[in-house]
């Protein structure tokens, strides 16, 4: 489709401003005035509505397609929560009210939502306290490892500058640890995503601040030795970080805090159903045990004896401010609504059905695709597209063929430790009929890979565009239309 800028015609307007009710004048310095207006499009409201509506139709989304993107938990996003996020009492307040003395009196509703959410998350995952400030999963990881750094410093352990990270970890783990000043040291995993305990023991030492572990692990397996791993790290004087990217597998069923983790981040856009928004905004709350509580980002939300809520900024050991205010409020609001809808029982139903759906896919797809690990999985199952490799059909080709069959592909080529990985996460919100249709499509693709590989290598053919020249895009970057 042509760019919105190309639809522009001089003189068209989409929005009428109220008439200026004061004299037209200003106090701008002439020398710093812009010579020409910003080259924005001139379109009608219909032009804009049609342009963006038609663009939206080029997307696959959860509402339109099964979207089993592994490790991303693409579950349904309830509409009532969208309505709640649009209530004027929540959308209009200015966040700087929170900074004004007694200004938080005007935001009691929002503070109560956040306070409740902190309690819920602490209880669900087995921790003492939660901060809601981190604005995304990776931002939560960064916050979590900063808390570990602050703990080391407070306890005179500044020599602890190494963070242990499994080779199966998401790329954000080492990137976040590096941003918090740690040297990353890789721990080997076996094909089941289990940590190599010998390697872990060999790499623990007085310079190790902690270990970042995804639980369940990044191949969708629950490690029964997590407790033992946490013990080993603690014995060596380090702390254990739980990457909660896969929390949908255990929510309401296993509490990482009970397993020995000291700190954990949660992706509310995964486990708690807030919309992914095409890549954000999300939120990445961080739960901690008591030992890390003094270092949490400030201000903290506190409940006063009269039941009202206030902010406490007198937190001398706090790592400081992570978000401009209290975090992505409207995102957290949706997740709070989700928790209240499901309640205590409902949360466990989520993990039960997410794990059931994934195991159903695992068993049904096993005859057609290779598996490195054959034991029961948690909320996602991982296959290898190795059987069809000799025919030239790779994980990428299977992904593209799925698009032609009306399914968003699973995550491919992650985790890195699995060759030709296809990581499928169905979530609990999908029905058995949808899973069966997906299984049928995968079966058909597997048989085509053997009989007519060429048919798959052309895929997708039903989409608005075919496979892209990605090399060209990086070699000759065209990143913006700059106008005249």
């Amino acid at each position: 489709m042509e760019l919105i800028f190309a639809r522009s015609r001089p003189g068209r307007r989409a929005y009428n401003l109220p008439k200026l009710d004061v004299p037209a004048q200003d106090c701008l310095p002439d020398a710093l005035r812009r010579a020409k207006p910003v080259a924005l499009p001139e379109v009608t409201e219909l032009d804009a509505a049609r342009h963006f509506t038609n663009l939206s139709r080029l997307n696959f989304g959860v509402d339109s397609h099964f979207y089993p993107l592994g490790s991303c938990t693409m579950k349904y996003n309830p509409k009532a929560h969208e309505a709640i996020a649009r209530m004027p009492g929540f959308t209009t307040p200015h966040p700087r009210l929170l900074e004004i003395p007694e200004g938080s009196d005007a935001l009691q509703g929002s503070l109560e939502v956040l306070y409740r959410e902190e309690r819920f998350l602490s209880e669900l995952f087995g921790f003492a306290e939660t901060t809601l400030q981190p604005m995304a999963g990776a931002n939560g990881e960064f916050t979590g490892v900063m808390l570990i750094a602050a703990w080391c410093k407070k306890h005179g352990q500044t020599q602890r500058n190494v963070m242990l990270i499994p080779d199966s970890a998401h790329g954000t783990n080492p990137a976040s640890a590096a941003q918090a000043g740690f040297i990353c040291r890789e721990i080997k995993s076996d094909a089941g995503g289990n940590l190599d305990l010998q390697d872990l023991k060999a790499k623990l030492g007085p310079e190790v601040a902690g270990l970042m572990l995804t639980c369940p692990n990044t191949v969708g397996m629950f490690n029964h030795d997590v407790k033992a791993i946490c013990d080993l790290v603690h014995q060596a004087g380090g702390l254990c970080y739980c990457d909660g990217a896969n929390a949908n597998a255990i929510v309401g069923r296993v509490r990482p805090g009970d397993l020995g983790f000291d700190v954990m981040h949660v992706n509310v856009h995964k486990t708690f159903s807030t919309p992914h928004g095409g890549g954000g905004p999300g939120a990445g709350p961080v739960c901690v045990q008591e030992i890390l509580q003094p270092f949490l980002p400030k201000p903290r939300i506190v409940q006063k004896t009269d039941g009202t809520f206030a902010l406490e900024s007198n937190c001398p050991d706090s790592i400081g401010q992570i978000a401009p205010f209290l975090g992505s409020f409207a995102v957290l609001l949706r997740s709070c609504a989700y928790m209240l809808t499901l309640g205590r029982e409902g949360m466990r139903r989520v993990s039960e059905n997410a794990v059931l759906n994934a195991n159903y896919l695992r068993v049904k797809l096993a005859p057609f695709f290779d598996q490195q690990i054959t034991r029961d999985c948690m909320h996602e199952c991982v296959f290898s597209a190795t059987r069809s490799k000799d025919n030239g059909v790779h994980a990428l080709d299977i992904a593209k063929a799925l698009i032609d069959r009306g399914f968003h592909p699973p995550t491919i080529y992650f985790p890195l430790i699995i060759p030709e990985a296809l990581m499928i996460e169905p979530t609990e919100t999908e029905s058995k009929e949808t899973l069966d249709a997906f299984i049928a499509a995968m079966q058909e693709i597997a048989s085509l890979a053997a009989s007519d590989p060429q048919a798959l290598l052309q895929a997708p053919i039903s989409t608005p565009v075919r496979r892209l020249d990605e090399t060209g895009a990086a070699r000759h970057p065209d990143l913006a239309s700059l106008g005249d």
Partner: protein
Amino acid sequence: MPYIANTDSDRAEMFAAIGCRDFAEMWQRAQVTEPVPTLEALPQGMSEPELLQLFQKLSQQNHSGLLSFLGGGYYDHLIPAALDAIISRSEFYTAYTPYQPEASQGTLQTIYEYQSAICRLTGMQVANASLYDGGSAVFEAALLSKRVTRRSQIIISAAVSPTFRAMLRTYSACQDLAIREIPVAPDRLCDDLEALEQAITSDTAAVILQYPNFFGCIPDFAAVTAKAKSLRALSIAVCYPTALALLQPPGELNFDLAVGEAQPLGLSLACGGPYLGFMAVKAEYMRKMPGRIAGRTTDLDGKTAYVLTLQAREQHIRRENAMSNICSNQNLCALTALVYLTLLGKQGFQDIAQQCASKTAFLRQCLAAIPEIKVLGEGNFFNELTLELPGPAGKFVQQALQKGCAPGLPLGLYYPGREKQLLVAVTEKRTRAEITTLANILKEAAWN
């Protein structure tokens, strides 16, 4: 159960398929042997009407009807009704990062259009697909300057938002970055241009300046950016995007990078987020930028298409050596900003900014008639004024809140020595009558 499709009979069939009797056996086989937690602090589930009623009540416990003159980097602007309708297309908001470009051309093209709009606004050549917010964007800009210059000293004016500076300090705590803040004397609004110029040395990675600055003043930074250039340090502009409708963009003012908070571009204030950090740079820094970037390319048939590109900078490829740990962008917020700029358009965006400026000038006139109130500064303002009150600004704000008016920010909260100063923001949404009301509240205030 809400949002779970499996019926008892579905479950029976599925258990049979995987060879399990029930959930208990399923967990056991997945090696989950922990006792089931009781979760006593969690309530029982709720029906939709109960839920809506609860949140309606909670939302009403916020005082959302305040007559607000609060700003400080986050502003209450008009939002066209069409905006929410357009971004509520679920094909946009229920999708994820466009890893599969053939199934995500809608998201990818809108990112490209957003990047284009940000470049046009800032006068830069390259923009990324967005960052979390203005504060994290300032930090990412500082890191970028360190990568480019291999130096570690950051000079930042104290007239840059205190929120952004606080976040920069938090984020840089474990980085090899030496941050030096150049203060502004409590009786001045303009940055200390001479001190900024002097502070830049051959160890400086970047100088960070904001316009309009936190006090609402628009300084001429030409000498500072020229000094930075002469010592090969980068100049980073922190901008209020709405003001750029009228002001010369950073790309034409010798700045190398432009960052800032794009909440004013159609995002609700929403008690603090989600917001939108933008970043735009000169072409030479393209490969040093953090975050997602969309590019235009072609498909197998030569048809124009869009794709995430320059991914060799990112964490999923480079791991601990990535430019940033950021994984995704604030995509729906970036789309919001793009649709906002589209709906307002070339003329409307300029008109909005002009109305802000005119109404601020009108407020200044009204205040001239109140002898107790002094408007500080020499006169270069966009939509925020710093007032010197006869008494403590914090106390005045509390009084005004009782009357349903949030008259501005007491600057003493952020800057010691400015206890009598009040920062007042006026947007196009404030009417002549409302501005007059504020003037009257100031006039009638009890200062003792």
